[in-house]
């Protein structure tokens, strides 16, 4: 018995490149930003960046679970647009009877949350019970929701009643202790998500399913139910993000939430979650979201590179992130 299993302190030794990579990238971006523009580290700009990150961020946390469990959801952007449209329609319709006030806002929120969960369940049902590929299902629902919102808006824009809009605005623009609501909600979602992913049975089950579905099944993990839950949770979070988003513009149109799905997926991947599933980390996703918004922010604040090149730079970062991950893996 010479080849004893040793309990080395490997876990405490230097973190690997896949852990350090995203953090280093974020630090570098902050340093560049601070050097380029003195307003960059000002409270106003930081709040602005965080608040804008919040929508994609909240969705991306949900996406982390879906991807970790070996799934994908392309429909979240148009789902957000559809939910926004629905919220506005319902609130406008209820206005004559309910009047401007807290109850009607709560009604709108309820609509968003319920619609989100239902939309997520629909995706999940088609993927798990009916057994269609996630890519196909969500490509389909992506088209459906986008077209529904266009139809609801009759090709134009759905606007929230002016009085309501004024009443609802603080949900985006105000908060407690100078921290705006979207940031607070984002923070809560991240903390709960991180705990769920790294400490809870649910997260462990998601990773097991993404790693090997058959093994999960043989290990008494309810594969379909867990997958369904990831989609429902993502739907719920899309609803929550929409609740924060509607007061910002007070309207919804065919271009609301355009390409959010890709930004969310990109953030998840940059954060170190494996696209084919089996491993995910919520804190990484947060860093991914921040990296993406910082690039946008820095390009807007400085005139070094045209903001039109934003997409190109983000693309390079995504590819780099994946290369880094692969190298980390090859080294074991």
């Amino acid at each position, binding site marked *: *018995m*010479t*080849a*004893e*299993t*040793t*309990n*080395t302190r*490997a*876990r405490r030794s230097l973190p690997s490149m896949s852990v350090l990579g995203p953090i280093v990238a974020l630090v570098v971006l902050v340093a560049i930003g601070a050097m380029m523009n003195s307003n960059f580290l000002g409270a106003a700009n930081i709040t602005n960046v965080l608040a804008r990150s919040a929508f994609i961020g909240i969705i991306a946390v949900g996406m982390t679970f879906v991807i970790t469990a070996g799934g994908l959801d392309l429909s979240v952007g148009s789902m957000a647009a559809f939910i926004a449209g629905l919220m506005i329609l319902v609130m406008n319709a209820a206005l004559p009877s309910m009047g401007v006030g807290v109850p009607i806002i709560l009604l709108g929120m309820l609509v968003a949350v319920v619609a989100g969960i239902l939309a997520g369940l629909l995706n999940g049902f088609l993927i798990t019970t009916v057994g269609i590929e996630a890519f196909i299902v969500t490509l389909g629902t992506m088209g459906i929701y986008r077209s529904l919102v266009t139809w609801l808006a009759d090709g134009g824009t759905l606007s929230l009643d002016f009085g309501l809009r004024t009443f609802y605005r603080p949900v985006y623009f105000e908060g407690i202790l100078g921290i705006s609501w979207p940031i607070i909600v984002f923070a809560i979602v991240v903390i709960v998500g991180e*705990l769920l992913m790294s*400490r*809870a*049975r*649910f997260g*462990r*089950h998601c*990773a*097991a399913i993404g*790693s*090997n579905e*058959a*093994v*999960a*099944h*043989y*290990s*008494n*993990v*309810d594969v379909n139910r867990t997958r369904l839950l990831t989609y429902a949770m993502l739907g719920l979070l899309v609803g929550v993000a929409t609740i924060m988003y509607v007061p910002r513009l007070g309207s919804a149109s065919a271009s609301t939430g355009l390409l959010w799905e890709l930004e969310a997926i990109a953030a998840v991947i940059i954060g170190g979650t494996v696209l084919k599933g*089996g*491993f995910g980390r919520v804190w990484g996703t947060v860093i991914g979201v921040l990296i993406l918004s910082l690039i946008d922010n820095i390009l807007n604040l400085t005139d070094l590179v045209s903001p039109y090149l934003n997409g190109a730079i983000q693309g390079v970062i995504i590819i780099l992130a994946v290369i880094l991950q692969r190298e980390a893996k090859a080294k*074991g």
Partner: protein
Amino acid sequence: MTAEQVLCLRDVRKSFGPVEVLHGVNLDLRAGEVLALIGENGAGKSTTMKILAGYQPATSGRILLEGEEVTFGSLHDGEEAGIVMIHQEFNLAEQLTVEQNIFLGRELRRGPFLDKRKMRELTRGYLDRVNCRVDPDTKVSALSNSDKQMVEIAKALSRDARVLIMDEPTAVLTGSETEVLFDQVRRMTAQGTAVLFTSHKLGEVAEIADHVTVLRDGSVVHDDRASEITEDGMATAMVGRDVSDLYPAKVGRPGEVMLSVRGLTVPGHARNVGFELRQGEILGVAGLIGAGRTEAFEGLCGLRPASAERIEIAGREVTIKKPRDALDHGLCYLTEDRKLRGLLLDKTMRVNLTLQALDRFGGWMIDRAAEDRALDKAIDEFDIRAGRRTMAVGNLSGGNQQKLLLAKIMQSEPAILIADEPTRGIDIGTKQQIYAFLRDLAAKGHAVVVISSEMQEVIGLADRVLVMRTGEVAGTLTGDELTEDAIVRLAVGLGANDKEKVA
């Protein structure tokens, strides 16, 4: 007689991170000879073979190919040199057909197009040589494990190897399939091929090997002609202690009926299976590969669609629709396929160990300290040898993966354990430990089912043996009736009288 040395290792060392697993190994492969490399799980057999074939670089030491030192920069160099390796775990592209796999990377062409006719013809030829009846157009994912192994062997045959390396090729084969393989091996050695192979079935080693090298904990402890060592000698050299009493005494005095199954049907695999299992008993399940043993018991445990007239556990009727139901009634199934159904190869031992019984480790938040304690206990109890606790389970040696799988299943403390091929790929010393463990479990009042293709194993271990044939129960054997001959006769469907044609 000293045949020409084709491929040699000289003082080869190999480390994974800080852990050295090979400590100066010397090995000689000679033309026209079969060299058996044997050793305990984790001794370094697979690692040695991978170094020889160019799949992994050695940390130090030399590889000599016909006396010349070579470095295999890649796999391709190994293949160029005529070295072909069949891996312990399958190395086939699951989504491609049998034919595509056999010609993968060396597709035949006629002009710019694939020469499909020629490839089909050759494929059939190779498959015929190993007596494999599968259609070249079937996807590999649809094949049984033994057919996959035969396809691997056919693929190796197609390569006209100068050196053939096989890592536990017979672990998933039946006795007659092994004979077919050995015939091909003899044919190849007659043509001057050097063959290196490993197996935990020492009888096979004695049968086919010309030369035996024994590895223990990464060092060669014995290296001589096969005629110079007995099976017992091999076992002792491998394990370092005497292992002649492989099977524990059958002291079992069966108690109450724990599990009673009537009319279990798994569509397409098993019909009308019925049996009783008593407390304190080990029931062996024998049969040919494809007899529906695995499928029947998977169906029983809710792992695949099945129906039953009546299932009783401890006297009460139960319905089992999903794995959760089975587990709730204390019924647990240990899969035969550790790689595809048993373990998450990219996860650590801790995650794998507790996956099935995660609800025993904290509420909806997982208690990691408790998990770590369970792992300590499992490593100790099952003698799991891994370099580091945190390494991916896929990097454990095959036998240690199997031990971890057994430990994982035991986390849910099943009252009734169904173990499907529990000792596949396990060394003889550990086999002894596992048999003792299963017997002990039964003695503590649990009930155990052992499904096994190794006849000696069911006979040595089980109190009673159920033989299945083409999805149905062909008969049950106890006491003195329990002979290899009787099992084979039931398994192939011969009456008690006609004894000829028994393979």
